């Protein structure tokens, strides 16, 4: 089969000019792999794992870095229009509001989850 040479749209050409290349993607993937290894490692370090007040913020911090790296580089939010970023962040904020409401319900009901069924 012969691949036919056809052009991208003007919008895509403009976006592509700002996108990183394969080397940058591999570099981001290596960072993601290292962070994942660190996450699992601290889970097994007893001096950290035995202190949830230390372990949980560290795990959340690592997850946040991975989340942001994938969104910014692999999903190109760092390079594309800020409008896309706003749409996505709106969804995340709404999700956090839902989470806040659920937690509020949880704590105002004596720490017990609502009965299932």
């Amino acid at each position, binding site marked *: 089969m012969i691949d036919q040479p*056809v052009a*991208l749209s003007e919008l895509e050409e403009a976006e592509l000019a700002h996108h990183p290349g394969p080397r940058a993607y591999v570099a981001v993937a290596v960072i993601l792999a290292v962070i994942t290894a660190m*996450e699992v490692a601290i889970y097994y370090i007893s001096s950290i794992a035995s202190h949830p007040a230390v372990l949980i913020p560290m795990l959340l911090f690592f997850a946040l870095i991975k989340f942001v790296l*994938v969104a910014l580089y692999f999903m190109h939010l760092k390079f594309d229009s800020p409008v896309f970023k706003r749409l996505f962040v709106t969804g995340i904020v709404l999700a956090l509001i839902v989470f806040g409401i659920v937690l509020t319900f949880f704590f105002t009901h004596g720490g017990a989850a609502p009965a299932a069924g």
Partner: protein
Amino acid sequence: MASAETPMPSPGTHDVGAEAQHHTSTGLDNTKMAMWAFLGSECLFFGSLISTYLLYRERAGGGPAPHEIYDIPYTSVSSFVLLMSSLTMVLALAAIQRGNHRAMRVWLLATAFLGMTFIGGQIYEFTTFYEEGLSLAKSPFGSSFFVLTGFHGAHVTVGILMLLGLVGMSLSGKIQRSDARKVEMIGLYWHFVDIVWIIIFTVVYLIPS
């Protein structure tokens, strides 16, 4: 890897991409805008499921508790596999944007293979948990766990089907360089599924009860 780079069109070449470009009052691609709006709504969907899991994780109802059944090394490998599938996905997009169809197909198949490996791992995990006494109806913990991870697995499965569909379209000549946006849209979906798992892996598996 053998290169199948296609040259940029010379003046006078039939420019399908420019022809296919649709009107947009925002200066942004409408398809991409719709995809981001969809992904924003998916945040709410998975946020609700994660919130529910966090509420019910302590209610094992006589069945196995989270720390008794989770196999962290096993799930870590699954997480790594899914994370690397995001790399192969973005490399597929980079390949089609350069007009390299063969490389795109290789990276898409690699992404689908990694996705299938992840799903295979999840099926094994679910089977093991079921044999250890955890089921959808056993306890609130079991219900919230299986619904959350099951819906994520369903999303991965849909992503795999779309990836294989893209490969099929490419093989039949229905994907050109000007169709890179299609690959990008499916890529956005795939990366989203990956970042949802980043949160699930930390919140569900790593953070202790």
